[in-house]
């Protein structure tokens, strides 16, 4: 009897062990090629967009207009930080949406998974109307187009104007000014509550989705750095450990380690938490995109902040530019998907994306130049500035690399580690450079 009890206990324990251990499910190893049929499958068009708060409502306005015009029904799905996670799961389950609206930076990642379709620009109605620059954010290294551009933007510097006034400061014009103001915001009690509970700069320093390097890129480029050297013939070598890289990284690290002017939870924060830090008066400066006007205006900092062009660094005044693309997925409704993309780049849809919902501008700067930003936004000077900064200072990440998302993730891991340990920037960048070179090799574009 004792033995039976023991045996059954072993069995139960084994069962518990097996049940408790997470198993990653995948699906069959089938590999259906993208559908090339000319007839769409039945059912609504499944569209996923990376959006949160009120942005889904703005997308819905565009989709409703599309359905009214074409009779094609849309089944939308929205999520933000875990967008790629959910999409990868859908791909693994062979249950992809038909259309995805997401950052241009994911192009290589999606292409390398074989989940997006190549696009023949000549067959997209209205493609010739879009700014030539916007198409650059939809191409791979060979110049093949894999997406339809939808929106563009460049980061600006958001500053608490009431804090500047209180401490008698002017908006920054250089890195030194940024550091000095950040210090004053941290130590000068700008909110006047008698507590040392404010910080200078808001930084999304988490490695999730590569946030920290995404943010750091502006400073890196401003010091004159570039992630890669183009060695010709579609080959590249990493160059983050250049003198410019070390200069930018040292400055960035000092904000955390020496000056201590960044919100203390930064290294685990994504943009969600970082937005909150700015909105709730924890931080006084934040480099972020014009989409944040709507977010911030819907919070207690409304009317208490000003927006300026990012101040220049030692080499130039470049700032992180980004695109949002419409991806046509490997699905079985290619015609309806194409029609939606064509509609989303019309002036009508672009305007809807800018103004349909006051608290969400899903089209930041229109890709269709027939839409006038200033007049659509009732001459809001911030949008005029956003347009100017994008045109004059905007610098894209190397989105067209075979898988930029993977390269950005490696950069983020390195930067987060360096800042967390307050380590040696040169050593960290040397290690990162080797890592990037090995990734370039894996992606088949390494020089030498």
């Amino acid at each position: 009897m004792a033995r039976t009890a023991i045996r059954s206990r072993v069995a139960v324990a084994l069962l518990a062990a097996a049940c408790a251990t997470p198993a990653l499910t995948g699906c069959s190893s089938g590999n259906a090629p993208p559908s090339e049929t000319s007839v769409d499958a039945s059912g609504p068009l499944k569209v996923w967009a990376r959006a949160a708060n009120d942005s889904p409502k703005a997308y819905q306005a565009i989709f409703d207009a599309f359905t009214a015009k074409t009779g094609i029904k849309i089944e939308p799905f929205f999520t933000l930080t875990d967008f790629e996670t959910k999409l990868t799961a859908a791909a693994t389950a062979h249950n992809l949406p038909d259309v995805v609206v997401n950052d241009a930076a994911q192009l290589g990642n999606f292409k390398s998974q074989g989940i997006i379709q190549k696009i023949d620009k000549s067959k997209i109605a209205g493609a010739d109307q879009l700014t030539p620059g916007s198409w650059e954010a939809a191409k791979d290294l060979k110049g093949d187009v894999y997406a339809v551009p939808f929106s563009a933007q460049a980061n600006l510097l958001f500053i608490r104007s009431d804090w500047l006034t209180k401490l008698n400061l002017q908006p920054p014009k250089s890195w030194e000014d940024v550091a000095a103001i950040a210090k004053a915001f941290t130590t000068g009690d700008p909110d006047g509550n008698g507590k040392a509970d404010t910080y200078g700069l808001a930084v999304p320093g988490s490695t999730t989705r590569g946030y920290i390097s995404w943010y750091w890129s502006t400073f890196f480029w401003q010091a004159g750095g570039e992630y890669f050297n183009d060695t010709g013939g579609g080959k590249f070598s990493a160059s983050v450990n250049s003198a410019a890289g070390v200069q930018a990284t040292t400055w960035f690290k000092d904000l955390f380690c020496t000056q201590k002017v960044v919100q203390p939870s930064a290294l685990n924060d994504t943009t969600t938490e970082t937005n909150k830090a700015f909105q709730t008066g924890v931080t006084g400066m934040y480099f972020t995109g014009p989409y944040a006007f709507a977010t911030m205006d819907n919070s207690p900092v409304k009317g208490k902040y000003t927006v300026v062009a990012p101040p220049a660094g030692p080499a130039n005044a470049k700032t992180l530019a980004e695109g949002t693309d419409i991806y046509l997925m490997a699905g079985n409704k290619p015609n309806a998907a194409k029609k939606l993309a064509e509609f989303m780049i019309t002036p009508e849809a672009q305007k809807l994306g800018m103004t349909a919902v006051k608290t969400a501008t899903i089209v930041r700067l229109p890709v269709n130049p027939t839409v006038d930003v200033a007049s659509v936004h009732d001459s809001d000077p911030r949008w005029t500035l956003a347009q100017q900064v994008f045109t004059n200072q905007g610098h894209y990440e190397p989105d067209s690399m075979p898988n930029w998302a993977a390269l950005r993730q490696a950069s983020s891991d390195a930067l987060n580690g360096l800042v967390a340990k307050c380590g040696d920037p040169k050593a960290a960048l040397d290690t990162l450079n080797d890592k990037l070179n090995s990734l370039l090799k894996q992606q088949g574009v390494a020089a030498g």
Partner: protein
Amino acid sequence: MAVARTTVPVALPAQRDRNGGTRRRRPGRLVPWLFLAPALTFFALFKFWPSIEGLYLSLFHVRPYLGDQWVGLANFTRAFEDPDLRAAVGHTALDAAVQVAGSMLVGFLLALLLEAPARHVRILRTAIFLPAVTAMVAVAELWGALLFPGQYGAVNSLLGHLGVGPLPFLSSPDSALWTVMLVQIWKHAPYDMVIFIAGLVGIDRQLYEAASIDGANAWQRLRAVTLPALRPITTIVLILGMIRGLRVFTEIYVLTHGGPAGATESVVTYTYRTTVTGNDAGYSAAISTLLLATTILLTVLTLWWRNRREAD
């Protein structure tokens, strides 16, 4: 003694003796399986089959839309050579050991304090049990806010009054893992407490009386009566805790995303990352398979060790 009273399988041999033949034994044997069938079907569909599928996928470079490539044992070889995974295994082992031991100790002490039928104790017990039934995501979000590393974070404000801190908690690679462990102990100790209380209730009161008559003090009664009687329960708590420790995910993912600087990366958060940001489901399937094997091995070893101790 308590164990013998609660052992269910006793019924089966008794039935066999009474009926003798095999004809009536069958339906009798089927009944428990029928009761188990819904749960087993569920586990088969959502646990066992995925585990087998995972084992199969671990032999491929998984590319859902481009066709999987056979790589043999390459994913496993890579797992043994991967320094990031090694670090994650280290964090997981340390985390499992500390939080299992911590939860058991705190759970046991709480059980000793709160094992009484009085009404106010029942209310207190329910209140203390609440963390165990609260969703981990909610718990982690809450602690994330409480542990804000600035001077005005809720916990740091309190510490400030005592002249300590502000402590960095989750924001420093040196303290992040320890902070996560504290949150885990806070969450899991009440669960262990309930199991220990169940064990304490099952101890025959006569043993305590006998010990008292023999002149044993409270400490001696605890050592000589309570602890030995709780052995089987302790094994269960240990195994459950170990499994929980090895697959730790939610609290780490919500509190730190595995950071800063990878200081809290556990095996499962690492697996998750290789799947969803690395798009390498084959490799993560290999890691998951190894984790499953490790868990089974550890479980069997614990039981074997326990049974030997009991036999002695």
